[in-house]
């Protein structure tokens, strides 16, 4: 009976087009939209070199130190030497952020103020300050040149070293995809609702027919839930393959743990739906509405619409984070991707298992009865 029912439930779920759209196609569509929307978000923060022109004149030729200094700052500037007229034209066409006229005052010409213009200004101020320092030192003590003072003044040293606390580089975009997977896991609730409705005599006519048959209701229910979980896992597997293979989203290299998160998340999602389906004695539409509403709120709090929300919840109301299955799922992925230990990961998985147990127990207590007060 277990396998017989399992096979037919698989068939029923697969052939439910509406269900397959929401639990399978919709997350893939959403992932594609996310990818299009966030494609340039990561690269937006990378530094673009400042385009600057230097006007060639006699004074510039007499001060090779400046040419040497600005050419040496090739990680900051893309420099082109040109005439003043050409520099004006380049500035007018916005092909450069500004141009430098090396005369007695070392002038900077810009047509707007902004970050790039400030960078050029800072560079020039630094050059003027260093030059003045050297002139002062040499005037006061000409022998200082022999002691390597020039190298000391012009050199720049980093005294801080950046050490990453994680094994991967932080990427704010991936959290959106983690939240999307969390949402997909909880959308397994659609399957849970469907299975409970199909087995309860007070919720559907087929449920009544199944209750009249000489079969153990718990056996039928368990095989139905297994069918729902199987499909949910399959859908998640395809979504993950799509995210990794097609969209190039990184989930780290701990595939076993990723699979474990998917299993735990799916079980939580399916049992969450079953719980809603069993305790709400209203129409299936209302059950689905409540499921969608609660899933969207949980996904929102887990950072699906705004990455800052997850941070806000964890700093202002951390308990809410631990009571939110969607947040636990995103946290599991986050922990796998960023942390070097698995403490946080297993905490999240255990909490998800706790939720699964809670939802299953409530569902069992409701559906175990075989006679109803009313139909």
């Amino acid at each position, binding site marked *: *009976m277990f396998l*017989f029912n399992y096979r*037919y439930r698989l*068939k*029923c*779920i*697969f*052939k*439910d087009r509406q269900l397959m759209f929401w639990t399978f196609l919709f997350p893939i569509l959403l992932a594609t939209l996310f990818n299009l929307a966030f494609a340039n978000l990561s690269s937006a923060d990378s530094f673009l070199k400042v385009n600057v022109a230097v006007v060639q004149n006699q004074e510039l030729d007499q001060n090779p130190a400046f040419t040497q200094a600005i050419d040496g700052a090739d990680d900051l500037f893309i420099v082109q030497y040109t005439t003043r007229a050409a520099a004006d034209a380049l500035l007018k066409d916005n092909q450069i952020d500004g141009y430098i006229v090396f005369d007695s005052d070392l002038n900077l010409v810009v047509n707007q103020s902004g970050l790039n213009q400030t960078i050029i200004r800072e560079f020039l101020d630094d050059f003027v300050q260093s030059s003045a320092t050297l002139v002062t030192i040499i005037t006061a003590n000409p022998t200082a040149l022999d002691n390597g003072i020039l190298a000391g003044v012009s050199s720049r040293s980093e005294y801080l070293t950046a050490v990453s606390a994680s094994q991967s580089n932080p990427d704010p975009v991936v959290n959106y995809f983690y939240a999307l997977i969390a949402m997909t896991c909880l959308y397994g609730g659609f399957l849970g609702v469907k299975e409970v409705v*199909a087995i309860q*005599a007070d919720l*559907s*006519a*087929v449920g*009544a*027919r*199944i*209750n*009249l*048959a*000489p*079969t153990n209701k718990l056996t039928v229910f368990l095989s139905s839930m297994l069918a729902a979980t199987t499909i949910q896992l399959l859908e998640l597997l395809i979504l993950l393959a799509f995210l990794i293979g097609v969209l190039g989203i990184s989930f780290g290299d701990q595939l076993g743990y990723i699979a474990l998160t998917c299993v735990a998340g799916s079980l939580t999602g399916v049992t969450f739906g079953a719980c809603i389906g069993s305790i709400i004695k209203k129409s299936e539409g209302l059950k689905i509405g409540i499921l969608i509403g609660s899933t969207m709120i949980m996904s929102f709090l887990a950072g699906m619409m705004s990455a800052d929300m997850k941070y806000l919840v964890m700093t202002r109301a951390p308990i809410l984070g631990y009571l939110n299955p969607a947040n636990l799922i995103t946290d599991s992925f986050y922990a796998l991707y960023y942390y070097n230990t698995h403490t946080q990961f297993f905490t999240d998985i255990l909490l998800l298992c706790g939720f699964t147990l809670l939802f299953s127990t409530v569902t069992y207590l409701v559906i175990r009865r*075989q*006679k*109803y*007060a*009313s*139909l």
Partner: protein
Amino acid sequence: MVINVKNLVKRYGDLIALDHFNLEVQEGEILGLLGPNGSGKTTAINCILPLLKYDKGTIEIYDQPMSPEAYDIKRNIGIVMQNVAVFNELTVYENIDYFCGLYVSDKQTRKKMVAEAIDFVGLNDFTKFHPKKLSGGLLRRLNIACGIAHKPKLIILDEPTVAVDPQSRNNILEGILELNRQGATIIYTSHYMEEVEQIASRIAIMDKGKIIAMGTNEELKQMIKSGEHINLELLNPEHLKLSEIQALPHIISVELTDHQLVVKSSRGKNNLIAILDHLKDQNITIGKIYSEPPTLNDVFLEITGKELRD
């Protein structure tokens, strides 16, 4: 005895849905459970099956107490629900196979039973159709096939012809008679008295949660005073004295509307002849005449004071 229900009481809050309901069903009969909507027919069936909790009473099927775990009893019962109970995602064949599979685990046996059920309800040309593609009549037939494919000894049909066209209704009723001929005991609930009269070997009339009369069609009609309903079209009723007709033997009531005279008589011989003789003596010309025997509606009307179709 197939079913023995004693003093069944079912309450929904203050409403008493079944009020000391008693029922006995013998092997091989077709018991028609007749009553207006809300009389408690479906509640009684749901308690017997047993889907519904009840407050008081005992239910035995095949001399065994009925309970949700009574799998041996359930195996012998087939249900055709009032609402069509099939999966929209499965084809006609798959639906019948699934519900048959809840009773019969052997694949080969099941295959044969499903084929026979399809043949029985005449859905051979629709086995690969999904329920949404079927007409109302065909859907009802699928509903029946799902309930009887496992060849139950007791079949309970709860208003199986609701919203079905007359042709499909006749097919369904013929099918039920055939199932009975094949040996099945049948309980048939309906609020259509014509259907119950047509197929039931015994009829139980329900009202307000209890059985108010039970017997064969003839036995029920014998219980009441009403006999024939005589309708006469009178061409010149101007000089008719209704009191003189009322005074004739066995006449219960007389009513004249326009040219239409309706006479209700109690049981007795030659009632129509006596009326015709009287009209002839009064020189009243008669157009059309027809007379009909009492119906189950008359039985219900006389016992409860209200129409069955109210």
